[in-house]
């Protein structure tokens, strides 16, 4: 049997080592064989939730360096006044619309990492998102995403149908690859659709029998996974879900995604990696300051994260939420009372295991001499060091070089977002 180099690279040396030269579907089937988790294991299973702020969030207005006069000098019309900022440490403060997150900061389960980004200098949304999801800045031909590579390489954790889930109509680039992962638009609609429950159950059984008896290869193993997932979910009964502790998710896509992630976590369905998009950050025009366009997006983000933490309650101790965005925006405001594509940005890290209550990363300052290409906030933390730390210290990943090919993660450079 000949196997192309691309396939070899995609399925990884480890997979071939473990499975000999079995066809990929056998590897997938073995990866996916589901065993119900013992209750104790389920309780301590760590979960990573990634939120992608597509469009490049203005990190300087999300986490404001209000202690720096240059910030106000460069942004006469869009700076957040120091009197409005939710102060964090005397130098940085949260945008007022993120006030809902302050209690999490105070109890040390929210951290900020500033001046983080890509070593690649591109200011194209497309390229920068691509690099942040493939995990290989500057290399376009990487076929899979880093979250998928993590799932493929980390065999410490058992696979369940819901191990890796993206909320949205399509699987994002970050989860593309050969490890099984699901794209779910709506948890309640997952499975066969029919007008009534009885008809749905009959249809589900019919297809299950069709595939059990007639499918071969990958069609067989994947359909088995699919019907297991349907069954598991039915038991968890998402239609009956009520958020705990009076948590109120904001209306809209983000709130819905976060609530469904909470459902999966609380249902002990084996979720380990979740992903969702948050759009609307490309604020070239009329960005606003304490109020306005960006403020409205931040309000939704802040309320969403706060509701998620509240809903999870004790379970938050196993969960880390990480926000990311392809790049930051210009330090100086533009002629349209907005900002253009820049370089470094800020990312939020929330959850029980987080080394919270501090702004991490080396702050390069806004001084023109220390700017990237003379105009943008410089990157002092490679996003792979941040993502790598979360994978290693939170999820227990052992082989980061397989997750970020061409990069040698070094714990010395980890920004320290996870409590040791």
């Amino acid at each position, binding site marked *: 049997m000949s196997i192309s180099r691309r396939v070899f690279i995609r399925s990884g040396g480890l997979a071939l080592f473990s499975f000999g030269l079995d066809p*990929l*579907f056998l590897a997938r089937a073995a990866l996916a064989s589901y065993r119900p988790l013992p209750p104790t294991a389920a309780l301590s299973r760590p979960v990573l939730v990634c939120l992608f702020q597509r469009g490049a969030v203005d990190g300087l207005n999300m986490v404001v360096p209000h202690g720096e006069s240059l910030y106000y000098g460069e942004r006469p019309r869009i700076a957040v006044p120091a009197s409005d900022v939710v102060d964090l440490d005397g130098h940085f403060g949260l945008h007022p619309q993120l006030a809902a997150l302050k209690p999490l900061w105070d109890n040390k389960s929210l951290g900020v990492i500033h001046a983080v980004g890509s070593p690649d200098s591109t200011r194209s949304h*497309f390229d920068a998102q691509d690099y942040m999801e493939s995990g290989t800045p500057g290399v*376009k031909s990487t076929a899979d995403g880093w979250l998928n590579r993590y799932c493929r390489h980390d065999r410490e954790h058992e696979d369940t149908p819901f191990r890796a889930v993206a909320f949205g109509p399509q699987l994002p680039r970050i989860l593309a690859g050969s490890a099984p992962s699901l794209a779910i638009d709506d948890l309640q609609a997952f499975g066969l659709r029919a007008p009534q429950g009885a008809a749905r159950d009959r249809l589900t059984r019919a297809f299950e029998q*069709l595939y059990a008896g007639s499918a*071969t290869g*990958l069609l*067989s193993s994947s359909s088995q*996974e699919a019907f297991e997932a349907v069954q598991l979910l039915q038991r968890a009964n998402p239609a009956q879900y009520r958020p705990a502790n009076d948590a109120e998710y904001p209306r809209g896509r983000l709130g819905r995604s976060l609530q469904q992630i909470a459902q999966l976590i609380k249902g002990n369905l084996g979720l380990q990696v979740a992903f969702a998009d948050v759009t609307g950050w490309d604020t070239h025009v009329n960005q606003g300051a304490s109020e306005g366009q960006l403020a409205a997006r931040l309000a939704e983000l802040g309320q969403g994260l706060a509701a998620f933490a509240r809903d999870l309650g004790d379970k938050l101790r196993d969960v880390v939420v990480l926000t990311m965005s392809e790049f930051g925006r210009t330090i100086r405001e533009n002629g349209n009372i907005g900002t253009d594509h820049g370089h470094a940005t800020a990312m939020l890290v929330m959850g029980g295991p987080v080394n919270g209550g501090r702004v991490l990363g080396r702050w390069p300052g806004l001084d023109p001499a220390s700017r990237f290409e003379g105009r943008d906030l410089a990157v002092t933390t490679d996003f792979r060091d941040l993502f790598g730390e979360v994978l290693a210290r939170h999820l227990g990943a052992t082989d980061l070089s397989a997750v970020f090919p061409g990069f040698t993660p070094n714990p010395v450079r980890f920004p320290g977002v996870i409590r040791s």
Partner: protein
Amino acid sequence: MQNPVLARLLTLTAAVASLGAWQSAPHQSAQRQPPTLTPHDSALHALNRLAYGPRPGEVDAVAAGGVMNWIDRQLSPDQLDDRLVAERTVKFRILRYDSGDLARLYAAARKERRERQQGGQVEQMGRQLAGEVEQLAVVRAALSRRQLYEVMVDFWANHFNVFFGKGADRVLAPSYIEETLRPRAFGKFADLLIATARSPAMLFYLDNWESVAPGSTPPALTRPRLHARSWFGRGRYEPGFSREPAQADSQRRRALERMPKGINENYARELLELHTLGVDGGYTQQDVVEVARIFTGWSIKRPQQGGGFEFHDWAHDYGEKTVLGVRFSAGHGMDEGVRLLKLLASLPATMHHVSRKLCQRLVNDEPPDGCVDDAVAAWERSSGDMREVVRAIVRGPDFWAPENIRAKVKTPLEFVVSAVRAVGGDPDTTPRLAQVVARLGQPLYRHVAPDGYPEREAAWVNSGALLDRMNVAVALAAGRLPGVTVALDSLALATADAEQLMAAVNDGILGGTMSDNTRRVIREQLAEAPDPVAARALAVGLALGGPEFQRR
């Protein structure tokens, strides 16, 4: 020693002799058994691989006329009357606009959005037009009589992938499909390669339009007030510089700051790795750099305004280069790029790489070596005529070998289109059917990475996507799938007679491949469905969503 190519030709003659429509004298082969395909099964196989599956009655028609005759006609698409599709495509407004029109339209839509006119007319039209590009591909695949041609267009759209969602590519992409790829889908590979290299869509997608020799500056930026033009529209517009001198100077300074500062290797790398030699094609990083130097200056006239190809001699590196040991002497301009593309198109590694991908598409995810060898031999004989390469693959014994029948899992596009064809479906011009393809995991022209959609089943088969396929099948059979009208009567008349329904479904949808298990399950289900219309929808839905129909 026997000539392997000759031996395989003999085998092939023997193989197709049994198909009942081959004119040459039969020969016996000691190496391979001739396939045991009946004319019906060979027609089904050809329609599954060289077309998007059979429409009702088509298997019998192709079998009766001779499958090799049908293939020969498919290889000369211009001779096939395609009035139905021609009549349908005139309804697509996207075909009436050029890149410049689209650029103006999208600019107006952006302005509308900025001025907060939600759901404004122009914006709505922009969205509709964007959807039309995808839907057009689905409609052509479903309705065209030039099926093999449409299969080839799809193959090239992936081989020379461009992500339509990247900035100006939204504007540049329609012409990429219509003017760059479609006219050359059955032509010489070198022509296709050169056309893609010059296409604004590719130049923008892989950044070559910004690739300049280090230190070069456009004339408008070095000669103040000579002529108000800008060269790189990195923001939203390139309005040219102000008439007011101080303002013009500051604009010029800003434009200079934003000027690309050197070569960009993206296109060069993908040209070698994906478009021609393949990842193991024997090139080095230094070759990539030299190729990028050769293509400096291949650019676009104002991409945000939908401009065409433009060679910037001021941005070109006129120094000497060496690629794969071949010297390109100093002093050459755009001509050396064309020379390089012709060289790449003729190299054995390219022939092998592209032939292998074609065999992967048409024969097996893991293409047999013999099939690739046949294709390469035809490539050499015909100087890269893709029609001859495809002909060689289809006439080769591997194409008809039992282990390759139904060996491929359908991509979402193939699944949706073949299901629509199976039920005599007629898609409309709204993007709804293309959205179904997207939901199943294959948004057309929106594959982000330059490698295009993969030809391996592992990329398509996962639990979520399988459940979605079942839902699509059930909805289509019930006539509830938006964007398409079905003609179930052309497949089977509504009846509560389970045996009659199963026979029709087995024959019309599964080509007679229904397994005992499938038969048993459908029979059990039909026992609980007394209503004739509901029973037919159920039988068709289960067959389309079941495992047999996922293969081709």
